[in-house]
């Protein structure tokens, strides 16, 4: 099967590899690159576990053709932390018990971090809207929403 060379940045690092035609970005990230933080929950765009950011916008990796990220900046939950320093969202999720099995957490974090970049002071409804594409089967959504609001508040205090 013919393969296509694809070059993109993954969490800031130059990445280049050959992908099969028609391969989706989730498989390429996980099996091609070895970037495992994006999860496969449904492989049909229904659950949000594979949510990544491409050039700053949220995308579902399972529905994204890998060839389309040529030259783009791809970000995953593995890139949220700055070295050993956790992102405020990660800290808030930990302290607020906003993860149980953890399978939806990377996708949740991508949705939440994108929200907070655009909307530093979101209302509760805006948070709920922002994670409405991400399913969680364990914790219920209340601790997740609380954690995102807490992180937003923490980030505003840090910026002020």
């Amino acid at each position: 099967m013919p393969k296509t060379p694809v070059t993109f940045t993954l969490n800031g690092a130059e990445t280049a590899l050959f992908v099969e035609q028609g391969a989706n970005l989730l498989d390429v990230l996980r099996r091609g690159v070895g970037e495992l933080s994006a999860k496969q929950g449904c492989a049909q765009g229904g659950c949000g576990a594979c949510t990544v950011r491409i050039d700053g916008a949220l995308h579902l990796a399972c529905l994204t053709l890998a060839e389309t990220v040529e030259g783009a900046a791809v970000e995953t939950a593995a890139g949220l932390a700055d070295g050993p320093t956790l992102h405020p969202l990660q800290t808030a999720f930990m302290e607020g018990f906003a993860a149980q099995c953890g399978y939806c957490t990377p996708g949740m974090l991508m949705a939440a971090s994108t929200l907070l970049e655009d909307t530093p002071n979101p209302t509760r409804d805006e948070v709920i809207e922002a994670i409405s594409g991400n399913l969680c089967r364990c914790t219920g959504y209340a601790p997740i929403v609380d954690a995102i609001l807490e992180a937003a508040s923490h980030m505003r205090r840090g910026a002020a």
Partner: protein
Amino acid sequence: MSIEFRKDLFAEERDDRLNEIGQPRIRQDILGHVTGRTRYYDDHLFDGLLHMRCVRSPHHNARIRSIDTSAAERMAGVVRLVRPRDVPHNINTLLSLIGFGRDDEPLLQPERCAYKGEPILAIIAETERTAREACDAVRVDWEVLPHVLDVEAALLPEAPVVNPEYPNNTFDYHDRYDHQKLRFGDIDAGFAAADHIVEGEYQMSPIEQAPMETCGAIAAPETNDRFVCHTATQALFFSLGTTAKLLDMASSRLHFIGGTVGGGFGGKVDSLTEPMAVLGARLTGRPVKFAWDRPEEMQVGAPRGAERWRIKDGVAADGRILARSFTGFFDAGAYTRLSSYAIVKCVGHLPGPYTIPNVAANVYCVYTNRTPATAMRGFGITGVDFAIECQMDRVARAVGIDPIALRILNAYRDGDMKAHRREAKNTALIECAQVAAAKAGWTLPAEALAASSLRDGGVARAEIPRTVTDQAGRIGERRRAVQPPEPLAPGVPRGEIPAGTRGSAVVAAAPQRSDMALDPTRIGHRTALSQPAGPRAPAAAPPVSPSPTPPRAPSVASPPPAAQPLYSTPPTFDPVTSQPSLGSAPGGGPPASHVPGITPPTGPQPKVTVPPTGAAGSSAPRHPEPPAGPAPTTPPHRSSEPFQRGVRRPGVSRFLSGARRR
């Protein structure tokens, strides 16, 4: 509000400084979750990974006439087809590892599919896409058969046979009944004394666990002739033992790695993916991943089974429930999995957290052509609790009493006797109801507010009443004629058990060897023996017999004396031997016991250890024998017998059989 700690376990070792309660604590594994570094089974990468997918039945009930795999085999990238004959021991039941139930389910179905989605063939290919396309290219000629999807329709004599191992469409309880019985007191007398009769029927649907991560496993050959298996299982050693049995491998050749589950909720205990992945790795010599996609998770993944309940209450004018009868139907789907066990658990829970002097239940584990059911969060309990609590509201309306006050009035209290003949301890329903009412701003009558779980229990409420029994529903009866499903139906001959008769002991599995037997004096809280010999003692058959060989009924084959376990009564899962066989009672009068799990009191009654009906000529002992020589001493496996420890059975490792200990 002060908290009172009632401790009867490790009382000296526990203090009451509960300084962790109320403190936020961070989960120990959450750092991995938020950084995306937690490794689930699919986060282990293997070079040359192959993908396995299954061809599945599109029909509820259909026989395979022929399978044409030629197109699939010709496809580039297809590595290997896996057929039923490639499974070394292609029959299993999940609980065979603890000796409960008969093998009834193949890993790959060779003949007749009994539910929609049952796998008949697997294809291993270089990519998931190729495996998928190859499965689509398989042509199967199906002979579609009539199916049954309703539990009560499946009980009719003319219903199609769902599961050939259980041709009556019901699980066989105690080798005698087509349902699990509970009898406590005399419900007919209770109904006769009641001022109100309240009846209700309740239906629960199947519920899919729907974890975010679907079921799956990756297996790969290791060096040293072993296979490593990364799996999403919730039951690692269940999966390992099941794989060893189905593949007829020593479990020491299996290296199972689990522990991180992307959501389970009970749906990942069935051990269906691990044997397939290991089999694939064994047949190809390469790493193989077998994972369900989301549609498979929803269609094939075993749900919490549907339940149908009919409850009839006899209630006094003041709200006291005098009698309660249950008729329950668990929809097991096509195979047993865990439904048989769910009912045992359920019946131990009836009649809910209430003290009712007369209780009876008939609960059926029914096979239908639906997806097999399995564990899910409190399975066996939550469904009937829904029915019971709806019924309580109905009773409250019928009698005209506050629904919370009704629950407090009927709540069990410390010292009360429960219907399965165990004393209620550490009860707290009254306090829970009081707190719930207060938090909801609900005004309770003064009497309900003053009630306490610590008072007014026991004494007369601790007595085990004379119990009316019946023998309706013996295995096979229903195939001959429609039987009334409800307990103590009219026209059925009655028997009775004297007041004070306790149930058989609930002990762990019988020890394999005499030196593994527990010292009854050290079991403590588990047995009645640990309690001071009080007035109840004479009526209580001690759960653990102090004498190594209880008297035996005549004219039945006995295992060799050396094999006699210290337990006079076997585990509840196998209570057959605790019952005298029908008609074994000497002289006239009713048989001493008709009720599963109930042994007669010590005394003149026939003694307790009797093999199952019809087993008199059987050479297979109920308990393993100690070694009498080299290898062939282990009794041979008989396919008609349930799987047991110590019985050399094809497909079970010596490690699990206990033979390794010798």
